């Protein structure tokens, strides 16, 4: 079995989840740039029933031959089934509830899977000014389900986000319903250490699987809240040679 990095573990596990969703007929994926785009494009190459990649730049059914640096690379438009305007992609395609999976990342994630991509510190005098919301708030609100992919650390996985840019489960169970949100919210948080899922009773994120060689202590140390572990805690499967070769070829292209 080849060596691999924790980033590769994270990306491969996200791609596997996308593959399962596509196979079950829920493969319309609204893809953020960066890690989500890398994992989505890996899934497109790995699985016969591939996810349909939709980018906020208006690209529907993109099949890029190489990883786009930005959500607006020409490659995306040239390889799409359809290209629509930005107002249309948000109104007719995302808001309408046609998207199965919203695939997001962020700078901070809290225990109810709310995401911060706006500021570290206070809004008025931020310690770090981040790029901001982009498409995330409405992806988090309207997608059938949300998958989050983020590198895990005590600084980024926090008790409560400094700023709530995109809603997960708000302050806990029932908030999404209270807000009248149509999307299902975050179902999977995939990190470089583990996979978390919301507790069905509280919507708090709990660790359901550790990556090979990762200990509970590592995860506890890399989580800013008193993180809990599922009773039947699993270990994710080692990345296969095919998964790793495909990912590396994709990133090298």
């Amino acid at each position: 079995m080849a060596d691999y990095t924790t980033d590769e573990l994270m990306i491969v596990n996200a791609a596997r989840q996308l593959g399962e969703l596509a196979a079950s007929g829920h493969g319309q994926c609204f893809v953020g740039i960066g890690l989500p785009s890398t994992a989505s494009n890996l899934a497109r190459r790995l699985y016969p029933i591939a996810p349909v990649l939709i980018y906020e730049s208006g690209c529907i059914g993109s099949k890029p031959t190489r990883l786009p640096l930005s959500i607006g690379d020409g490659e995306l438009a040239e390889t799409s089934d359809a290209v629509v305007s930005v107002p249309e992609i948000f109104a007719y395609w995302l808001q309408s509830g046609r998207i199965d999976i919203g695939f997001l990342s962020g700078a901070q994630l809290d225990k109810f899977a709310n995401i911060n991509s706006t500021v570290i510190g206070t809004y008025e005098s931020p310690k770090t000014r981040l790029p901001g919301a982009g498409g995330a708030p409405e992806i988090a609100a309207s997608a059938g389900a949300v998958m989050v992919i983020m590198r895990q650390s005590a600084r980024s996985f926090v008790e409560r986000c400094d700023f709530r840019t995109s809603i997960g489960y708000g302050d806990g169970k029932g908030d999404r319903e209270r807000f009248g949100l149509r999307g299902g919210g975050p179902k999977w948080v995939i990190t470089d250490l583990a996979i978390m899922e919301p507790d069905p009773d509280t919507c708090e994120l709990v660790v359901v699987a550790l990556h090979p060689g990762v200990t509970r202590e590592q995860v506890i140390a890399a989580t800013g809240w008193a993180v809990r572990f599922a009773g039947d805690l699993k270990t994710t499967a080692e990345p296969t040679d095919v998964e790793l070769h495909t990912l590396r070829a994709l990133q090298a292209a």
Partner: protein
Amino acid sequence: MADIVSLREAVAAHVHDGDTLALEGFTHLIPHAVAHEIIRQQRRHLHLVRMTPDVAYDQLIGSGCVTRLTFSWGGNPGVGSLQRFRDAVENEWPHPLEIEEHSHAGMATRYAAGAAGLPFGILRGYIGTDLPNHTTTIKTVECPFTGEVLAAVPALNPDVGVIHAQRADRHGNVQIWGLLGVQKEAVLASARSIVTVEEIVDELPPVAGAIVLPAWVVSAVCLVPGGAHPSFAMGFSTRDNAFYKAWDPISKDRDAFTAWIDKHVIGTADFAEYRESVGF
């Protein structure tokens, strides 16, 4: 009806201190050349509007042209932060920057409302986020049929809408294809508009995926080949990803930034000279 003029003339005629400007482009077709000409003509107190302020806006902000920014995502796509934007927000350099922050869906709705002559637009958005606590232009409206509460945002109607396009004909009809972003909405929502193009032709040949903005909704058309660089014009150029990466260290340092602007923008007479000076 569109006048076909030099970019210098277009900016002198249509962009004034204190104007609200939307230089739009969603990664593709970003009107960098117009941003440079605005810096050269030293416009001040501008209110810039854009969904995705990136390097062009970083340069305008760092050059002290901007007092207000309305946006939804301010970063260097695929690279990271927008350093001049951060320095303005975090440290008020070169001076304070007032910001009005939305989501992409909200900004797209605002442009569409502006283009449609409506005072506001509605969307399923912002709910449960902290944005409405800090942005006064997010309100709610109740559906008179279902009672559902939806987010409401005011129309965007800039003084000047600025875009880069592939082509115009000699009448000033503008043809755009590839990623279209909100460029049509930005032009139609604005009181005036400037369009830079890669080429001006006798007849616009049909192109799959292309839209045409008729000359009578455009104020000025300027021939500026490569005018989107480091962004691109599908069919004419590719995105200069290396430049976006190179911009990060330049923009991180105030002196390096100022030296770059002095040399390549202030120090050049027009975009053609800028191209030579940066060598693309």
